[in-house]
């Protein structure tokens, strides 16, 4: 007989699961109806219409159901219903309200839900805008929703096979067999949840996942349009919406990826924004492929070429999103990634492989079906034409994607390599170097192409004018490269080349925007996009090449240049410095002093460490600049007995960032061995020296205003007035109280300054005469040798160039989109579609009119 459990709230879960089923069935219904509508479009227009209406109804129902699932799960989390496994494992009572949303994406079910949610919203937009392609695109979108829906089902077939997992699983079902669940009142023992991973408790983690998943979801739409175009054999109608959706996806996915970088920079302590971690690579690669596809799509629009490769790139982008999900969610990366999600084991592994197989099969089938009939142009393009070099650029971007995904997939191909070589392959020892060594060449080529290709025209470019312009750009950017390279000591030649490439691209974009496009904003989309990309390259180069650890002077190790032996390499990585309380330590241009930790613990048990940074004038040795940094850490986060979980703090300058984080700190609850010491104060003005300042005795007072003291009739209460001067010149007051109650016994109330670990007690009042008395003050201070932090501090120069570059690039996507959506002309495949391409520009104002440079 089933046990009756008390204290559970089953309704939200039942409702939630009900909506899971509804959304699944509705998407299935919608996909089938849309499929029928597409199939009967030409043979039975009337029947097709009714199928279409059913498909729409199904999809709208599906969307409503998804939103309802969200609401139900939010209710469960926000109300701390720990009888649900999801709430219990991802949240806790002390979790600040602003991070409640982060609980959604910590777990796998929540992220799939988020993904489905975006698909359904985008689906509604496609439904309203796709017109003649609606039936086909929506068939694909609804079908993907069916597939994603299975991820939330949580249905068991027999003892071994489980399809999906529901976010509304009860704790007692998730952990069957645990003795606690044999008690009907088990809920009265489950007081609190397991809590959210502390590294996710960061505001970037509230917005980064939704944006990233919106980017992933957006890549479905170009995929759906490509499949629809192939299916219908119509290669014109899909063009404009596909360009538009690809632009939006490029912007959002790019933003999402860099937000992840920003989160890593601010909240993870590997010391940077990009570590070539598999999880990062897996989101970058679909973006690269998409950008390659966007460029070939533009070639197709203007010249009719490169259609086949466009279909391949854009469909591959969506397939790579799924492949990424496979890599990051199944635990296959286990050994290689710092933040690989815990896998849900074999069930998800095969589930995702099947999904990938289905999508790949559809793509290959559609391409194979139309392969022979796809429009191609027999003639050759001119060597000096925009389409030729844009095509080369796209191919190079794609090759970059292939290289990155090949290395990232190391755990996937490892078994094969083991069969061949007999050794079990492992990731590279120096991962950063492995990727940087190859990708720097990609960056060089892409930078030059992104700059130069803008000056070319479709079909045919006038060679003399082109070379004159490029020569001018090259000279200006050469001078810029030399200046920056000299000032920033970029002394490795491949990175000097990369610097030139980035400068070339920046100069080329600006010059092109001003002299050729006349700064007409609506035409500037591509220019702004390329400018932003080039700025990002420059920012990456400057911030990474000259990133240096100031807590233990080392330079230039980030690019992993060989230092000879492994031993020498490792010595370079000794980057932590110990800071004892109050002791000044030199760090680069600064002196750093640890001045104490936050006395009050926040709701979330975070401890902030106060570190004072001073920059000293080299001549006068006076501090020219002083600032405080507050890196924080969770000491012994829930369920973990050892170590801490740290968040960095950063001082932002326009030109560089000083970035610090705690690697180790004293656990005060364990290490405090200090005792009280007695000091006799004879006269007002007497001084007690402290470890980190001094304290003066100002005399006694009978005016006691202390909340902790409740006067009783007959009390004699006296305080000792103490003034504390800390090392930074700060002044604080202490008033320990001595009370004689009923003339019989004395009680004492201590006064403390937690930030200085200073405890004072007025132990005794020794009366000497009518109007003079000594005070015995007991002082306890934590031994400064017991109070220390282990800190790592880095300087990232010019990192704002990177963040700025990303913002400019995203802006470029949207300007392009604005122009595309604003144009009234019907999009055709034609060379005449780019009126902005200099055609209305008098030749004599072109850049080439400047005196030729020898």
């Amino acid at each position, binding site marked *: 007989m089933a046990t009756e459990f008390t204290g559970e709230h089953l309704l939200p879960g039942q409702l939630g699961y009900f909506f899971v089923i509804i959304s699944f069935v509705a998407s299935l219904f919608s996909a089938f109806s849309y499929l029928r509508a597409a199939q009967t479009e030409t043979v039975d227009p009337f029947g097709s219409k009714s199928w279409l209406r059913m498909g729409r109804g199904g999809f709208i129902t599906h969307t409503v159901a998804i939103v309802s699932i969200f609401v139900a799960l939010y209710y469960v989390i926000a109300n701390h219903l720990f009888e649900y496994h999801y709430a219990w494992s991802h949240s806790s009572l002390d979790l600040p309200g602003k991070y409640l949303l982060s609980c959604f994406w910590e777990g796998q079910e929540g992220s799939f839900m988020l993904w489905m949610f975006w698909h359904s919203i985008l689906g509604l937009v496609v439904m309203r805008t796709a017109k003649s392609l609606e039936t086909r695109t929506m068939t694909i979108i609804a079908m993907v929703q069916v597939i994603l829906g299975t991820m939330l089902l949580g249905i068991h077939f027999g003892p071994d096979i489980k399809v999906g997992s529901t976010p509304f699983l009860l704790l007692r079902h998730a952990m069957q067999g645990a003795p*606690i669940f044999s008690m009907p009142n088990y809920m009265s023992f489950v007081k609190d949840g397991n809590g959210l991973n502390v590294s996710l408790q960061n505001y970037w983690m509230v917005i980064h996942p939704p944006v990233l998943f919106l980017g992933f979801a957006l890549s479905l739409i170009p995929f759906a349009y490509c499949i629809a175009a192939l299916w219908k054999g119509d290669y014109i109608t899909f063009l404009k919406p596909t360009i538009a959706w690809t632009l939006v996806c490029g912007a959002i996915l790019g933003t999402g990826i860099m937000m992840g970088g920003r989160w890593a920079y601010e909240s993870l302590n590997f010391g940077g924004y990009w570590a070539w971690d598999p999880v990062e690579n897996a989101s970058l690669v679909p973006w690269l492929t998409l950008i390659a596809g966007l460029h070939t799509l533009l070639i197709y629009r203007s010249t009719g070429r490169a259609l086949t490769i466009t279909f391949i790139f854009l469909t591959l982008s969506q397939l790579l999103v799924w492949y990424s999900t496979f890599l990051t969610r199944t635990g296959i990366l286990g050994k290689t990634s710092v933040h690989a999600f815990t896998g849900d084991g074999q069930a998800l592994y095969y589930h995702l492989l099947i999904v990938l197989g289905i999508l790949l099969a559809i793509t290959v089938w559609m391409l194979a079906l139309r392969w022979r009939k796809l429009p191609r142009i027999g003639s050759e393009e001119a060597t000096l034409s925009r389409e030729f070099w844009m095509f080369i650029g796209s*191919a190079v971007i794609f*090759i970059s994607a292939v290289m990155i995904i090949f290395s990232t997939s190391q755990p996937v191909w490892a078994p094969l390599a083991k069969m061949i070589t007999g050794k079990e392959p492992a990731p590279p020892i120096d991962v950063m170097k*492995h990727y940087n060594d190859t990708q720097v060449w990609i960056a060089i080529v892409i930078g030059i192409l992104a700059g130069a290709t803008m000056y070319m025209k479709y079909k045919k470019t006038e060679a003399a004018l082109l070379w004159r312009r490029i020569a001018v750009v090259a000279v200006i950017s050469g001078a810029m490269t030399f200046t920056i390279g000299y000032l920033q000591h970029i002394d490795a030649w491949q990175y000097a080349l990369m610097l030139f490439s980035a400068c070339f691209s920046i100069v080329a974009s600006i010059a092109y925007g001003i002299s050729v496009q006349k700064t007409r904003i609506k035409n500037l989309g591509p220019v702004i996009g390329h400018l932003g990309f080039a700025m990002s390259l420059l920012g990456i180069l400057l911030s990474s090449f000259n990133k240096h650890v100031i807590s233990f002077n080392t330079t230039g190790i980030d690019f992993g240049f060989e230092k000879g032996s492994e031993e020498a390499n490792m010595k370079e990585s000794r980057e932590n410095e110990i800071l004892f309380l109050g002791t000044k330590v030199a760090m680069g241009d600064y002196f750093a002093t640890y001045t104490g930790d936050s006395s009050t613990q926040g709701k979330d048990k975070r401890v902030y460490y106060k570190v004072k940074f001073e920059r000293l004038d080299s001549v006068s040795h006076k501090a020219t600049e002083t600032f405080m940094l507050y890196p924080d850490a969770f000491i012994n986060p829930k369920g973990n007995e050892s170590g801490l979980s740290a968040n960095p703090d950063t001082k932002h300058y326009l030109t560089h960032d000083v970035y610090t984080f705690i690697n180790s700190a004293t656990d005060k609850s364990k290490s405090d061995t200090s005792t009280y010491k007695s000091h006799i104060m004879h006269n007002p003005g007497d001084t007690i020296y402290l470890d980190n300042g001094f304290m003066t005795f100002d005399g006694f007072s009978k005016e006691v205003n202390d909340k902790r003291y409740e006067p009783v009739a007959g009390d004699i209460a006296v305080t000792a007035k103490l003034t504390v001067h800390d090392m930074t010149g700060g002044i604080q007051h202490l008033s320990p109280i001595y009370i004689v109650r009923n003339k019989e016994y004395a009680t004492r109330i201590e006064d403390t300054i937690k930030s200085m670990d200073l405890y004072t007690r007025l132990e005794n009042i020794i009366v000497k005469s009518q109007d003079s008395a000594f005070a015995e003050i007991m002082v306890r201070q934590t031994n400064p040798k017991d109070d220390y932090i282990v800190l790592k501090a880095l300087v990232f120069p010019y990192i704002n160039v990177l963040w700025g570059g990303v913002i400019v690039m995203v802006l470029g996507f949207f300007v392009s989109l604005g122009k595309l959506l604003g144009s009234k002309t019907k999009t055709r495949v034609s060379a005449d579609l780019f009126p902005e391409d200099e055609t209305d520009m008098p030749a004599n104002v072109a850049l080439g009119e400047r005196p030729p440079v020898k």
Partner: protein
Amino acid sequence: MKKTHIALLVLVVVAISVISATFLDFSTYETFGSASKVPGKAFHVIGFFDKGKGISYDPKVDPNQFTFYATDKSGVQRKVVFVNGAPPRDIDKSEQLVMKGYVKGDAFYCNGIQMKCPSKYKKDMTIGESS
């Protein structure tokens, strides 16, 4: 043959040769025994943290170094010197360690550790049983 095809072919050849060249970057998983045959060369070694011997870390002496003992898959135990900072969180709870480093003398010097930690289920199963 079209120009684009030639260009593509060249790019593919370059890409394949670059990938093959960087293939040498990939390390191998070894045991303490096989890693000690080439002292000074870095490998990946999979091992298990010895809970009995614990961690020794004294930042007052050296904030960048801590030592512990690990047993590799073949059952050989070695002292591991981590030279790159403070002990990571939960290392003493890990089920498995992937250590990146080289053998020198009796010790394994490493500057990178990947930890595989027990899943949340197990951790809380013990809590459930004790309450």
